[in-house]
Every structure is written in structure tokens, then in C-alpha cells.
């Protein structure tokens, strides 16, 4: 059911939530988190749809914060809050409140959100568009354990990555990182199969897709080798090549769904690597709410240190100043590689 409230307050919304639950006959349900979606009117529908689908896996109270643009100076000065409360079948498996903020209220969204958070349960903020420069310092972001941005949705995705690296705070994460989990797991599986030392790598994908940069930086930070970024027509990521002590390992996905894994002395194998829907990305993002240190390490590696094919700039040799922790973890790992065979026996 839906309850519309105009010129309202958080306490009236809370009351409407309780009424709505009573009316549909579920006085209390086991919601596991509060998801706050910050968006504009244009993207609200898609974001909410994705969140409702993700709520099948993570029943949540979803608060959609829409900052409305007012036309006249008088409207801009006047603060107003409208809300739409949805419970039951209209709201996936949880509850949804769509909050529309006008005028000065726009700058005080946290005052509306704070009283509506579920007690004790973790809070996740997702900026579908227009993420703040420093998510953790944003008044809404400060309420959350987990702050999800999406560099892909910004105007200048690659610069956005550098900005994210500068303001990174544990708990930050980005959907363009979530998008590459299947690639990362397949590349890790490839190295499980053929223990070897990787000497260099190349990531190929469409321009302005920050996932390619993140994957390249992840490889560079983990393997401690030069990684080159190559531009292709897409869709999305199209290939990863790793030169190693036992030949080239190629994971190639020209069509955005079925990939081929090729390794020396092994037959080519088909791997399903479909590009995922936003709802699936969000569901993965909500699965763990602790800081993602691996993302932090990849992000902080720095976009500038990646090599670019074609522009004559070689991939930077690492080793002078990568984060000390990376050095410590990657190098002994490389040395351990031969020992692994013995262990497997």
C-alpha cells in the first residue's frame, strides 16, 4: 500500500510506516539494514527498482532521498518535505519511503533520514548519481557504515577515481569495483590452475569505463608488475592478458557475455561472464558491510601509474614506492609459487 504525505515531517512518516504495516498485517519484519539512495528525479525510478530487486536478498528499509530543483527564488528559500510511504508488495520485501526535499531542506537531508533509520541495523548510502567529493564527510554519508558511489555514472569517470582515492575512508566502495568481481574471480582461478609468476599485464576495454582502470590497478597492486590499459570499442571490459613464466594467459570477452580463457598447454575454455544488472551489483554490495581493503589498495595504486598503449607512455615500473603492505604481501607470494606444487602433492 502507498501513503502520500505532503509538507510533512519525519515523525509523521514514522507514524505512517507503522500504520502501513498494521494495515498489511505484518507488524514487524526482520529487515537487516537501511538503504539510503540519494538521487535526482530522473534516476530515482531505476535506482529504486534495482533496490527493490536487491531487497529480495537483503530485506531493507529503503529511503530514497530526492533533491528537487525549485525554479523561483521564493520556492528555493521555502523548505518543504513530501513523502511517499510504501509497504507490502509495493516495496519489494521491505519498506520504502520516497522523500522529496525542496528549498532549504535540501541541505539538511540528514535531519529527515536520521529519525527514519532502523534501530541497530547497519546503514548503507548509495549515490546513484552526483556523489559528493568526500562521501564520508557528507552529512548523509556520515550516518552510514557503507558508502556506495558509482564512478561510471559521473561525467569524468577516470578523474573521479583519483578523487575517490584521495578521500578514501574505510567503508567507501564503488559499483565500478563491484562490476569486476566475476573477472577478478576468474583471473584468480586461472592462476590457481597454473601457478606461475606474472611479469606484465594488459587490460582492454571501452574508454571512460572506470572498471577497466580499477581492474588494471588491482592487478598492478596485487602482482607488483607493470600493467597497461588499452582502449577498445567495448562493450565494457573486453580482455585481460597476463604474460607469465608459463606463457600468456588471456581472458577474452568480445561480446559482453561469453568469454574464453586461454592458457598455454591447456585447451581454450568458455566462461560465462555476463554483464550484471544494477540490482545484482547492489545485492553483492550489501552482502558484506565491512571495509573493503582490497578495493582501497587497488584504488590507491593510482590511475596515473598505469601504462597506456599507443601514447608512448610505458607502464610504470613498480617497486619504488607502492604501499609497503603490497610489497610485503606480493613478493613472498611470488617466491612461494614453486613451493605450491610440492604442497599440492
Amino acid at each position: 500500500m502507498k501513503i502520500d504525505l505532503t509538507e510533512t515531517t519525519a515523525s509523521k512518516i514514522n507514524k505512517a510506516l507503522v500504520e502501513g504495516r498494521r494495515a498489511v498485517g505484518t507488524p514487524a519484519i526482520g529487515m537487516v539494514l537501511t538503504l539510503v539512495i540519494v538521487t535526482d528525479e530522473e534516476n530515482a525510478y531505476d535506482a529504486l527498482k534495482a533496490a527493490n530487486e536487491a531487497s529480495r536478498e537483503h530485506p531493507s528499509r529503503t529511503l530514497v532521498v530526492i533533491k528537487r530543483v525549485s525554479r523561483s527564488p521564493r520556492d528555493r528559500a521555502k523548505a518543504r518535505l513530501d513523502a511517499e510511504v510504501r509497504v507490502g508488495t509495493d516495496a519489494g520485501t521491505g519498506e520504502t519511503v520516497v522523500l522529496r526535499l525542496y528549498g532549504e531542506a535540501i541541505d539538511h537531508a540528514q535531519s529527515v533520514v536520521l529519525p527514519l533509520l532502523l534501530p541497530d541495523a547497519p546503514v548503507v548510502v548509495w549515490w546513484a548519481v552526483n556523489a559528493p567529493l568526500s562521501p564520508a564527510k557528507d552529512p548523509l554519508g556520515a550516518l552510514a557504515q557503507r558508502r556506495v558511489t558509482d564512478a561510471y555514472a559521473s561525467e569524468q569517470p577516470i578523474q573521479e577515481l583519483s578523487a575517490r582515492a584521495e578521500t578514501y575512508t574505510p567503508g567507501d566502495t564503488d559499483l565500478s569495483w563491484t562490476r569486476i568481481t566475476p573477472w577478478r574471480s576468474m583471473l584468480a582461478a586461472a592462476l590457481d590452475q597454473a601457478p606461475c609468476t606474472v611479469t606484465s599485464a594488459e587490460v582492454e576495454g571501452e574508454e571512460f569505463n572506470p572498471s577497466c582502470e580499477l581492474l588494471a590497478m588491482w592487478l598492478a597492486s596485487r602482482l607488483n608488475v607493470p600493467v597497461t590499459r588499452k582502449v577498445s570499442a567495448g562493450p565494457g571490459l573486453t580482455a585481460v592478458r597476463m604474460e607469465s613464466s608459463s606463457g600468456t594467459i588471456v581472458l577474452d570477452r568480445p561480446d559482453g557475455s561469453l568469454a574464453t580463457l586461454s592458457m598455454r598447454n591447456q585447451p581454450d575454455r568458455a566462461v560465462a561472464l555476463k554483464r550484471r544488472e544494477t540490482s545484482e551489483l547492489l545485492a553483492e554490495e550489501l552482502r558484506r558491510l565491512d571495509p573493503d581493503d582490497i578495493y582501497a589498495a587497488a584504488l590507491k595504486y593510482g590511475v596515473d601509474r598505469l601504462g597506456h598503449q599507443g601514447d608512448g607512455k610505458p607502464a610504470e615500473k613498480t617497486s619504488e614506492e607502492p604501499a609497503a603492505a603490497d610489497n610485503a604481501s606480493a613478493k613472498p607470494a611470488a617466491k612461494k609459487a614453486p613451493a605450491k606444487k610440492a604442497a599440492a602433492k
Partner: protein
Amino acid sequence: MTGSHGANPLRDAADRRLPRIAGPSGLVIFGVTGDLSRKKLMPAVYDLANRGLLPPGFSLVGFARREWENEDFAQEVYEAVKQHARTPFREEVWQQLVQGCRFVQGNFDDDEAFETLKETIQELDKAQGTGGNFAFYLSVPPKFFPKVVQQLKKHGLADQKEDSWRRAVIEKPFGHNLESAQELNRIVHEVFPPNEVFRIDHYLGKETVQNILALRFANTMFEPLWNRSYVDHVQITMAEDIGIGGRAGYYDGIGAARDVIQNHLLQLLALTAMEEPASFEADALVAEKTKVLGAVRLPKDLGKETVRAQYAEGWQGGEQAVGYLQEEGIDPKSKTDTYAAIKLSIDNRRWAGVPFYLRTGKRLGRRVTEIAVVFQRAPHSPFDHTATEELGQNALVIRVQPDEGVTVRFGSKVPGTSMEVRDVSMDFAYGESFTESSPEAYERLILDVLLGDANLFPRLEEVEQSWRILDPIEEYWDKHGKPAQYPAGTWGPIEADEMLARDGRSWRRP
């Protein structure tokens, strides 16, 4: 295996987004045309592939008598997946899977067929890169186990090479008494080393069963109460609403106790009653489970503290049901139990004097499996007798299936009255807090087989221990009396109610 990941620089324990993907491997299913294979195994393989948990090049080999080509088999898998898979069908996942689908036609005593199987496996190693790692799933009646296992040995299919593995997966029943279980174990272990034999008890793959461990050992609020000082008794129930259906041949002579108590219920008992394991490694778990199973004691008077029964004609959920003895293919004089209830005690400091009541049956009120830990009454109540008249005993109920979750029952004041305390329940439902994400038990178990993770599989020792518990009861039943009768669709025979009434207790209505 987890150990080999240590050397991979792309893996990190902190990187919890990366799933555990099985290494290069394949699965050979014997009896692939059977129901289990179509309804559970093939869909589980697809669901694993869909979740990205199978290695590239994963191969599925079917072995059966049917005269099929690879394409027919692929078609069969396709239909099974379309119909029964949990996750949505996606063409590219199917494309990945179908490349590794093979079928071998033959009987279990057909040497030629096993040679073909061997060639198929070698061909897959070349074409799909399975690296010689194969699990053999014996989805066949137990009488064929020795034959298949011997054939695998004879044709060198079970040989463990230095850098690859061969595993055997077997389904219950693991024998029908201690002696036959030992015999079966001997046959299987002659060919496969003990750590490469995986016994499937699909109950252990269920999320709720694994949750028993989380509930007990990850929380502080339950464990202090989990002993004889607070617990009055424990009831473990597995009820089915169906009859024996078309399984007359298998069921008659086996019965409910062997079919369910020996494996599922004793495993649930072990998980409920065991001490905290040193770690969640398979060895540590099995040590605690065998310890507690070893401490299980049978009641002195088996005639009074155990009940077996057969369902008689009746109405079950609005449908008329025939009695067990009238079922097609059942000897009208059969003494096989379709209902069994037993009382066990555990001789250790934690549980001394706390009875564990186990019951299972077919054609009972509804399909449900649950563990109920019933607590003692408060030693003193400041309220009047009339105020607490409607108050029962506190209970914690772990609902294993369906509607998985945990219920806590306790007393609460009824609003408006002067002072009246009544039972209420506080409920945690999996469906509410983690909807849809629960993988099927078989998915988890197949993945664990491929990963070589033996945590969720009963070991040889546990199987033998459970037969040691059940054998004396079965022997007693053989020699004394005959099964009681209960109308189909009810909660079992009167004798079972009387058995608890003698202790001053009663069965929960689940």
C-alpha cells in the same frame, strides 16, 4: 583446496568478494537417468555454474544404461535445468556447461563401457583441461555400490595420481546395520582412501543445519542455557506428509528408523548436543560429533521407551490415504516401521538426565523438521497459580524445513488483564532476513566435494556410531511385538504420546 591458494597473489583472505571456485575438475554421475540426478544434481551443477563457482572447463559425464548420444544427454540436462534450477536460465552459462557434457552408455558389469568412460575422461582432460580431477557420484541403489567401485578400480579410474584427485560420492543408506555399514566402508575404502570418500547427508548441506553451529557458538545468549541446569528435554522431529509412494521395494524392510533416525536425526542430535569444536576444520568437528554420539545411551526398557508404528488408512490434508499394509508392493504382514520414536540420553556432564526424544514418520500431519530445546519451568513464580495457568515451558525451536528459522517461546503479560501470563513466540525467519539467497543443499555439497572440503559430510566413524545406537533397537523390534497403527494424517500413534506422558511430558505439535 584452500591450501593451494596461499601462493596465488590474486587471492587474499581479506578479499571476501571472490568466491571459492573449485579447481579444474569434472563430475561423473552413475545412474544419471534417476530422479535425484534430474531433480537435484543437474540443476545444482547449473546453479553453481550460474553463480560462477565452477571452474572453466568443468565437465559433466553421465553414465547409464539408456542408449543416448552426447546430444541426447545434453538435451536431458537442458530440460532438467530449465525445469528445476533455482537460478534463472542464462544462455551463456548453458553454453559454458554444454561443452563439457558427455554420456557413456553401459551396464555396471560392462567392461567396455568403463573403458569408454576412461577414454572420455582422458579426452576431457585434453579438450576441457579437467586435469584428471574427477568425482564419481554413485546415484545408484546401494546393492550396486560394490560392483561400480570394483569396476572403477579395475579400470584404473580410481587411481590417485600425484597431482590430481579421484573422489567417490555416495548417498544413504550407508548399510542397514553396523555390520553391513562396515562391509560397505571396507569395499569403498579398498578403492578410495577415507578422505576421498564423501557421504552425502543432504540435511547437513541445509543452511539451517549449519546455522545450529552459528547460533550456538557465535552467540553468548544461548550457550549458558544449553545444558542440564536449564534444559528440560530436547525433541527432534522429522515428519513427512507423504506415504512411501513408489519406493515400496526400497522402503519395506528398511523402515523409518533406519531411513531417517540413523542418519538425519542422529546428525541433528550430534550438532545440538556436541561441545564446541576447537575449530571448524572437518577433523575437529568430527571429533566432537563422534564424542557426543559415543556418549549416547539407550533406555533400559526398550519396550517402553521406543515406539514404532505404521500408518493406517485415513485422511491426510483432505485426501484419502491408504494404509501402509495396503500400499502396492507391500507384504500385508510387513513389520516395517513408518513411524519411529525413541528416547535417548547422553552420558556426560552437560546432558546427564536430559532426555532427547527423536521421532520421524510418514503420513503425519504435515512436512516439518525441527529441533525443539524445551527449558525447565521457572523454579519459583511470584505470580498466582491462576496468572500463569496458560504459561507453558520456554522453548527454543530451530525450524530446519520448511519455513526455515528460529522461534523462541516465552511468557508475556496479556494486555488489559490484571495479571495473566501467556505463551508468545519471537520469531526469526530466514525468509525474512535473507530471502532467496539460500542455495540448495546439493549445490553446497557438490561444491564442497569439488573443493575437497569434508566439513559437511558424515565420516565413517559417525556412521558406525549411529548404527551402534540403532542396532539394539532394531533387534529388539524384530523379536518383540509388532508395529502400532496410527491413522494417516495424524501426529503418530497413541503409544508415542503415552511414552512421553509417562515422563510427564508431551510432544510438541510442530
